Structure formats: structure tokens, C-alpha cells
């Protein structure tokens, strides 16, 4: 009985698989880790291995604290090398054995992947790893309270990917220039 069930399922699986072969689609990292504005969790981990290469950098981590169970093995994934460098991160900023504190998103399909919203190495500053989330947090007035250091490429970035509402709010705050690009740090008020 069970065997017959399995055989019929195999047939369905094979047909489904053939259909899947021809399927093709492109999705962004938001589809894998949620929207830029979705909440993050705090995780502490130790670096076990570093892959500083394209198409994106990755690091193998052993969890040491925070929201995830201690001792579990997870993989941090992030931008391509060039984009990491535009954010201000260099390969030399990380070493096997370093401690990380992360504000991070989890993979929406429960795969053991982390996409960091911000990264702190050892006792260094908590540095942003996603400028569009910075824009959202700046527009909503919570960025300062997060104690996250803005990335090098925030200034001059187009805000479109942060969303229409965020762009509108940033403009109202005087944080977009004549070309609609982000101004950061905020211009200091002129003294009379």
C-alpha cells in the first residue's frame, strides 16, 4: 500500500521536476531575507571560516550568544566584494577566531543563513551593512538610538530602494540634495 503510494508520488515528483527545469525567475535578497524594514535579531558568533570572494562574501560562524542556540553552525552571507568595500568593509577587518555581534535577518525558508543589517567585530563599532535600512531608520527617527555607524556609501546614495515614503520623508528632513541623493552626515544648521 505504502509502496503504491510512494510510486504514484514519484510519478508526480518526476513530472513536477520536468516542469521545474524550464522555470526561470530572478529574485532579490529581500525575497530570501525579508524586506529592508523587517525586524532583525541580535546574534553573537565566532568566525570559523571566511570566503571573501564573489559573487558574494560569506563567513562560517559558530553561535556564541544572542537569539540563536549556542553552538549551532550558521553562514553569514552579504554583498559582493566591491559592494562590501563601498560600505567600508575590507577583508582585513575580519579574521578567523574574531567575535562578531550582528543585527541580522534570518532566511525566510529556515536555511542556516544570516544576512547582517549591521556588524560589530570584537570591540569595534557596530557598522551598517545595509544603507537602505539606514535610510528607513533615519526617516523614522530611530537610527541614532541604534548606535550604528553609517556606511561610507550612504552619502550620495539614491533612496528609491528604501521606498517612496522613506524618500519623501528624507526630502522633508532636508537629507536629499538637488539630484535626490542622500546627504549624510546631516548638514549642520548655519549660524547667524
Amino acid at each position, binding site marked *: 500500500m*505504502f*509502496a503504491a*503510494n*510512494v*510510486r504514484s*508520488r*514519484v510519478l508526480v*515528483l*518526476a513530472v*513536477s*521536476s*520536468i516542469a*521545474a*527545469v*524550464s*522555470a*526561470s*525567475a*530572478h*529574485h*532579490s*535578497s529581500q*525575497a*530570501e531575507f525579508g524586506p529592508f524594514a523587517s525586524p532583525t535579531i541580535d546574534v553573537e558568533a565566532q568566525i*570559523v*571560516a571566511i570566503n571573501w*570572494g*564573489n*559573487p*558574494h562574501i*560569506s563567513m*562560517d560562524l559558530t553561535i556564541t550568544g544572542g537569539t540563536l542556540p549556542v553552538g549551532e*553552525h*550558521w*553562514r553569514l552571507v552579504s554583498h559582493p566584494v566591491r559592494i562590501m568595500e563601498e560600505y567600508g568593509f575590507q577583508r582585513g577587518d575580519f579574521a578567523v577566531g574574531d567575535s562578531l555581534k550582528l543585527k541580522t535577518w534570518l532566511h*525566510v*525558508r529556515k*536555511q*542556516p*543563513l544570516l544576512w547582517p543589517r549591521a556588524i560589530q567585530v570584537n570591540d569595534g563599532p557596530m557598522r551598517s551593512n545595509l544603507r537602505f535600512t539606514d535610510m528607513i531608520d533615519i526617516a523614522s527617527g530611530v537610527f541614532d538610538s541604534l548606535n550604528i555607524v553609517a556606511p561610507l556609501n550612504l552619502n550620495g546614495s539614491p533612496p528609491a530602494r528604501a521606498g517612496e515614503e522613506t524618500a519623501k520623508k528624507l526630502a522633508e528632513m532636508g537629507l536629499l540634495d538637488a539630484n535626490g541623493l542622500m546627504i549624510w552626515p546631516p548638514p549642520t544648521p548655519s549660524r547667524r
Partner: protein
Amino acid sequence: MKQGLISALVAAVVSIGAWQAMNFARGDGATEAAAPAAPPPVLRYTDELVEDGWVARAPGADEKPLERASNSICYLTKIEIKGIQGPEDANSCAIGIDEFTGFWQLTAAVGEGGRSEVRCNARCLVWQ
């Protein structure tokens, strides 16, 4: 022709996976006679990854975890290669167990010197 071959390969891999699952459920005949039959495993198969594993126009490897290897078997559902420039363009789609995470892992790779594009995807048969 290529798609037909891939389809046949996928069907073969799925059949082997199901056969293994069947054997797992059937167990030893003698034990079955002496003890109440264990409930059959619940089988499901996953969707393809939300985003393909892919590498484009430069050497590199994109690795994506699939499912916990202890109770699943995975199979390729997509191999797409574009823009081959010459014999130095060596591309691959592969599935293997990542010993670090304990998950099956899909790897899309363009070898050193390559400038083409490769996209891969996979699904998994999972039993619980």
C-alpha cells in the same frame, strides 16, 4: 535534447530517493512481524530556492544551503549556462553535503578565467 536528458536524470534521482525512503519505512521483515508496524514517514518535497544559485561574468562559487541532510535528498532542477567564451569557461552546478552546516548545498560555479554565466536550482525530497 538537453532538457530531455536533464529531465531523465532528475526522474532517476527522485526515483532512487523514493526507493531509499521506501526501504527506510519497510525496515527489517522479521522485526515487522514481531512488532507493531511503524508509521510510514511523511514525505514532502520542497519548492525551488527563491533565488537561483548563480555566478555571472566572473570566476566564483555561489553556495546555497538546501535542506538538513539527515532526512532529505536533493536533486538539480535547473542548469542554465550562457555566454561561453571559450574552453577556459568551465561552469558547474553541483549538490553535496556541507559538513559545516549539515545541510545539502547547491553550488553554482564559474572556474578561474571564466567569463560566462551559470544558474542552478534544486528541490529536495524530505522525510519525517
